[in-house]
């Protein structure tokens, strides 16, 4: 391997890693606030790419139907739970957030679609359509078992991923998509050609991580999320509702995953089931950060991207085998580095 090839592989790896980093940060966000290891963020990323591709082809994406169905189910569940608890006065609120708002988003997207909007609007539409999915899934799937163990939540999360893969095939079909590059610019750095898309990916990753940092450190909502992550009961006593904090976390997380989906779509062909590997690799990065540190997760994810890039140069067939085998030593390191209390374990 010459230094030229190494440099190209490294840049390629950083770009892939930056995409994983966005998903990884979302994963850490959800885990700290809700204790759910949300494997389906990869699926959310893939669905965004597929949504954007459909919009580009002037078709209304299947995401719309998916959001409508999920919104109906979530509303039904919410109404039943309100009835059970005798809190019908909260019904208008529930109808607004779980039914009206998602339907309005889909309706707006549908109307805008007909005007054949430019790329920038299409990007916004794709993100708008994708962001309600994870919060709705949270309401349907995770809220009823919010008190469960991390393991139970993980098992459910994995099952949910498989459901989403099936839904992805149903709503988007088996064809892979590759969208137009967002920019055709390119630049040369130290003798190596860097495409504009690569630069865009890295910049986007930096910008979104920076925004998230500002959000957490300088806004009250961000601080309430951090408080929920540290101690659910304590933050409840301070008037923060963990369920609401969870919803905000899912919204933010899906936004990050959506952006990563948009960024990866012009680089790799995305299929309905591409999300699993994106999600898992991002997750490997998140584990490097101990599932708690955002910079740690970002660094870990970039590391995974570089590793994958070099591994696929050595043996493209075995690159996934290599990446996942390396997860085991990382897990051992993280497990040794974190203290566990026995009380957590379910009898």
């Amino acid at each position: 391997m010459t230094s030229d090839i190494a440099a190209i592989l490294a840049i390629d790896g950083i770009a892939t890693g930056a995409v994983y980093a966005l998903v990884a940060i979302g994963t850490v966000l959800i885990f700290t606030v809700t204790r759910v290891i949300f494997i389906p963020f990869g699926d959310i990323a893939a669905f965004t790419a597929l949504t954007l591709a459909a919009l580009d082809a002037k078709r209304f994406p299947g995401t719309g139907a998916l959001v409508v169905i999920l919104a109906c189910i979530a509303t039904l569940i919410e109404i039943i739970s309100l009835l059970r608890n005798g809190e019908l006065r909260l019904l208008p609120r529930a109808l607004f957030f779980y039914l009206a708002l998602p339907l309005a988003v889909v309706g707006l997207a549908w109307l805008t679609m007909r005007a054949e909007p430019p790329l920038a609007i299409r990007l916004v539409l794709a993100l708008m359509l994708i962001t309600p999915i994870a919060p709705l899934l949270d309401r349907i799937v995770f809220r009823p078992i919010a008190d469960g163990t991390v393991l139970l939540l993980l098992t459910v999360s994995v099952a949910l991923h498989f459901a989403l893969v099936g839904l992805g095939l149903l709503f988007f079909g088996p064809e892979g998509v590759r969208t137009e590059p967002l920019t055709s610019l390119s630049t040369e750095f130290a003798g190596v050609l860097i495409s504009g898309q690569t630069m865009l990916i890295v910049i986007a990753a930096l910008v979104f991580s920076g925004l998230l940092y500002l959000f957490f450190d300088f806004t009250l909502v961000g601080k309430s999320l951090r408080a929920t992550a540290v101690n659910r009961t304590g933050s409840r006593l301070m008037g923060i509702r963990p369920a609401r904090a969870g919803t905000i976390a899912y919204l933010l997380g899906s936004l990050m995953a959506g952006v990563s989906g948009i960024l990866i779509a012009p680089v790799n062909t995305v299929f309905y089931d591409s999300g699993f590997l994106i999600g898992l690799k991002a997750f490997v990065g998140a584990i490097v950060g101990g599932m708690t540190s955002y910079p740690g997760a970002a660094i870990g994810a970039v590391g995974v991207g570089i590793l994958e890039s070099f591994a696929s140069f050595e043996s493209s067939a075995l690159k996934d085998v290599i990446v996942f085998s390396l997860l085991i030593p990382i897990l051992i390191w993280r497990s040794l580095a974190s203290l566990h209390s026995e009380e957590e374990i379910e009898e």
Partner: protein
Amino acid sequence: MTRLHVQLAAVAAVACLALAPLVLNPFSITLMNYIGIYSLVAIGLALLTGVGGIVSFGQAAFVGVAAYATAWVSALNGYSPWLGLVFGVALTCGVATVLGVVTLRLQGHFLSLSTVAWGLAIGFLFGNVEGLGRFNGISSIPPISIGSFALVSSAQIYFLIWGIVVVVLFLGYNLLDSRLGRAMRALRGGNILVESLGINAFRIKLVTFVIAAFLASLSGWLYAHMSRFISPGPFDAGMGIEYLMMSMVGGAGSLLGGVVGAAIVTLLKNSVQDYLPLIAKGASGQLEIVAFSALFILFLQWARQGIVPFVARYLPKIKRERPQAAPPLPRRPQPTPGELLLKVDGAERRFGGLVAVNNVSFEVRSGEILAVIGPNGAGKSTMFNCLTGALRVNKGEIVFAGRAITRDPQSRIAKDGIARTFQHVKLRPRMSLLENVMLGTYARTSTGLFAGAFRLNQREEASTRHEALTQLERVGLGDKPFELAGNLPLGNQRILEIARALAADPALLVLDEPAAGLRRQEKLRLAELLRSLRSDHLTILIVEHDMEFVMSLVDRIVVLDFGSKLCEGAPAAIRSDERVQEAYLGGVA
């Protein structure tokens, strides 16, 4: 319902299985074969996940290793499938041992995530290795032959599959009811208790892990030679989840639940395939996995316990007979009264900058009750944990019965004869009183895996049961040995812990705040029990907060304050010591 009824029911079930091919059509027999093959994996998972508390997403990879191994031996190299069985089982168990040694020290969800990792890595390997047919798989795998009789049709291999399932269930239930099985059942709920009983928790986990992999390898072997064709698909991550689902639906922790879960999931999948096209034409393939995952999620939301435990609640209880008298278990040589038993010399333990225990020295002589007391934060619990090996001292030495135990692991110290109880009671609430106490005898007994599974060591088992009952009677809990430990009030749970410690035949009994949270009557009963143990020449070390409880009971007291030893002496002298009064009540100044 007695044991005889259960045995009759089992015989009837086996007879039904044996006669089933006479009445079932070929398609149903094939379905039954798949259920049997999946059952083996699910039984392994019931053992691993339900009993041992290790959630594995990767069992499908083990099935695949064995299936590919036997296909390689028989289809690609032309040897007998039986050689494939030997090779497949050996390879799978070897891989499992290596993975287990590397990963089983991981805690909680880290361990489960590692199963996702190696499950995926091995799964990707099948489709990418040259010589294993890549994604096209391996075809024309020969059928299994017994002598010259080849098991070609599904009705023929049926008997082999279900014969293996029945034998596995039989051995599995025997194992769970043996010494090793009890240790496996104790794994759930944390290592500290397990280690304190002289059980090497890591070893037990490894054994459980390899047994589960072994069952998966049997399943893989049968699968390869039944379907006569393999490809990476049936061994991927999705199938790993499905196996986990089978064992959870059936009731994790119940071996029979593995079979029930495999049957329900397989039949459900089959009917989903039948009926979905009626609802949604053309989209059935996609909807199948959605419907299936949704059902699984609903199941986890509403019925985490599983079907078999749910049904078992409505069945009549099995009546058990009180254990019969049996020859006693061998006892360890007890130290002569008055002899030096435990010597702590200059012990120091730091947590970062905090010195929790600072240069503490004291001695325990055989036959006495010594109390270590002190106000909150005095370092009592840290001292206790250092004595029992749960923590290591940074400096100093601890000598027990003439041997330095300063660097020994918990299980070794427990084997040497220090038995302990816990401040926050650690029992296995879903095991009976008798079984909880039987756990205490682990280090005194020797029945291993095979002797347990084949019931070869019934004499030791009878002695163990009798010993446990004797200790229950000794502490006054002998009237309901088959009650579940979780049903006892706190006072009796503490006393049950003492019975469990006594079952280890200890030379030194160490009690961590035994009176905490007890009502007055319970405290009096506890003090009475400890006095009677002293009159049996048992040495007792108590770490305690409750002055009144300690003063009337013990022979000598060591007082700790801010990590250092304040003074030592008889209760009366300690009571009048000004420094002690100051430490407890604040300065008079």
